[in-house]
């Protein structure tokens, strides 16, 4: 086994542990827990046996398994960033509503 494989597996194991702790602390719900566990376990499988992606990559017309991983990772990242941006925008609007309500309430009390 290559050194990089050992390092990555150790890292992913830590992240899995962390995910479980986060779930226990109530920061994640059931669905999120399962999604992230599957995600990191799949990542481990790929690290242990990189050739496992080769089959799927070939089916999709991508030459190397590593390329497939990069493409999928990029798409996932974009989706997540988009989701976060939308969430932030909504949060911003809520903060504005709160600020406005606070301002108008203060004015009524005078």
């Amino acid at each position, binding site marked *: 086994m290559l050194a990089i494989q050992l390092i990555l597996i150790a890292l992913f194991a830590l992240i899995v542990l962390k995910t479980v702790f986060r779930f226990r602390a109530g920061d994640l719900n059931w669905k999120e827990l399962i999604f992230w566990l599957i995600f990191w376990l799949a990542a481990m499988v790929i690290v242990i046996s990189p050739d496992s992606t080769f089959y799927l990559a070939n089916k999709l017309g991508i030459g190397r398994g590593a390329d497939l991983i990069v493409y999928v990772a990029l798409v996932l990242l974009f989706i997540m960033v988009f989701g976060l941006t939308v969430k932030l925008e909504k949060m911003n609007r809520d903060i504005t509503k709160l600020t406005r309500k606070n*301002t108008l309430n203060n004015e009524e009390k005078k």
Partner: protein
Amino acid sequence: MIFVVIPAYNEEKNIGRVVRGLIQYGYANIVVIDDGSCDKTGEEARIAGAVVLHHTINRGQGAALQTGDDYILLRGASVAVHFDADGQFDAADIAPAIKLLQEKQLDVVLGSRFLDNRSRIPFFKKFVVFPVGRLINFFLTGLKLSDVHNGFRILSRHALEQIHITQDGMAHNSEIIAQIKKKNLKFAEQPVLVYYYEYGQGIGGGLKILRDWILAKLIK
């Protein structure tokens, strides 16, 4: 009752002069929304004779305008004047605009820098920034106007009740125009004088407006 709504963020140097100027022209109900300024904007406005509403934290010009609109609706406003805090508008332009609103029974009167040639507009803005802005605005809102992003507006009570600004930043300007179109409000443009002290938003500001607008479309 006529109310003047002025969103202000760190305008301690100008806000007093702006409020006093409006009072000189006989506008008694002036509401300044101190949008979380870190200077003495609120104090200066109050000393000058305005009612001051405080946003605890800075939320942007659009957010402050909507707070002002909500407040004056509660106070029974029949006409609202949107005015800028930096002194770029002339209080003398308000009376003719209100007259136009009432005579023609309009819902909204929008200020425009281009209907007469009183405003000295920087060359690059006049021939590059504004034409592009107008075109984008037309695509976004469907209304053809002679000016873009002019903060001078007169609104009837009906318009105040209909228009609701959700764009906290500078995109509120296009948002108001889009709502005028969507809610079938009757509007006209009126020439106003704009003094240029500083350059204003620049192209980066314009891009941010576009970004805010696209984001809002995606959220809905």
